[in-house]
């Protein structure tokens, strides 16, 4: 086992990414109106319960069959290729919204959407998972490793349009954020 190089530090995304990172159809992993499309959406809130209007979220997920996407073209979507990745800024009410598909199970594991959160005031990005409710959750290693009162923060709610997943940066019902080996 060789010694790993030390990673470059992160820094906050700051307040001025709005003209640089969001792009046309960034939140549309599939075109709206596609059969089977769902809305993956929620509100980002701070420790005072106030909406965070200057957060940026990215999602990365498997397709409906559980295949890990390998298609390029996320930045200039062709309307056909499922790239599995999207980017959405929150609006003035702290709301983000993606149009995507329900992720399939990869190798029998509980399906989830990987979520990355950036914001002004957040000194480094945060990772979390939004699990699809109901499927395989009882056997999931990560969910089982969490205290009962925090597990629910990683499980999305089904609603009329798809999946709702609120992000709480701090305080009551604080979302469980993840750290991976080497971090």
């Amino acid at each position, binding site marked *: 086992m060789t010694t790993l190089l030390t990673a470059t530090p*992160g820094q906050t995304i700051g307040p001025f990414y709005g003209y640089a990172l969001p792009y046309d159809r960034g939140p549309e992993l599939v075109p709206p109106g596609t059969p089977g499309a769902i809305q993956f959406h929620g509100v980002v809130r701070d420790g005072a319960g106030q909406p965070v209007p200057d957060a940026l979220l*990215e999602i990365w997920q498997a397709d409906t069959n559980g295949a890990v996407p390998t298609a390029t073209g996320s930045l200039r979507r062709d309307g056909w290729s499922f790239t599995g990745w999207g980017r959405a800024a929150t609006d003035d009410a702290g709301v983000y919204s993606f149009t995507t598909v329900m992720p399939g199970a990869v190798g029998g594991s509980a399906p989830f959407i990987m979520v990355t959160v950036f914001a002004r005031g957040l000194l480094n990005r945060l990772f979390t998972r939004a699990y699809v409710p109901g499927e395989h959750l009882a056997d999931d290693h990560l969910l089982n490793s969490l205290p009962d009162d925090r597990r629910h923060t990683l499980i999305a709610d089904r609603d009329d349009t798809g999946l709702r997943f609120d992000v709480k940066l701090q305080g009551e019902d604080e979302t469980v954020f993840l750290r991976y080996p080497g971090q």
Partner: protein
Amino acid sequence: MTALTDTPPASVQPSTLVTQAAISAEISAIETDYHRAGLEETQPRLDYAPYRSSLLRHPTKDLHHTDPETIETASPCFGPSDVSPLESDLTIQHGGTPIGERMVVTGRIVDGHGRPVRRQLVEIWQANAGGRYIHKRDQHPSAIDPNFTGVGRCLTDEQGWYRFTTIKPGPYPWKNHRNAWRPAHIHFSLFGTDFTQRMITQMYFPGDPLFPLDPIYQAITDQKARDRLVATYDHDITTHEWATGYRWDIVLTGSARTHFEDGHH
């Protein structure tokens, strides 16, 4: 005042902004505690009060350690259909030449094992030479440059190299405290071979006198770690009668892939 400027939320905003001396004293006290504790840190603290906007936006619980699974061990793919080669030159996006010091910044992106991050997306954004962003909420009374937007993209090559031609950004004031100024910087958005390596950071310039005063830079409590965000002036990158040159290499966290899978030993 809008909530979208870099200003503390109303609930924590004092009626008058605190002084640089008060912020510097907070920075110094945290640094003293860090040295006393004797445990090396390599990333910024999320809970760093001198950066007032972080007060209500940092998690209070420890990050939960987990091994990456399924999609976490892969990363979105980008290719020539996503990024035009012209997007790496921020000085040719308009009808004229932007004002300021033309510069090249280039470097290599590797993972924790030293393996190049190939054909992956790099995005940058920055202020112009006068410290002004195009962003509509930047109210700094410094000139907009009609020939400079300050946004670039490129894909790394087979050895993990990126390269941008741009204008050296200026420092700019912000409202964290009274007479607060950010050191000049370029924002970098980076992807690896695993989405767990996703990161956004800021590259700084050597010898900036604002370093000790800046709570965002100082949120990285370790000097060696802070130094990793500072580019090096490199005269071999500087080009004759054209542009100055800076080198900045980037290390992403280790990926879950093994050397065997990587195909290069």
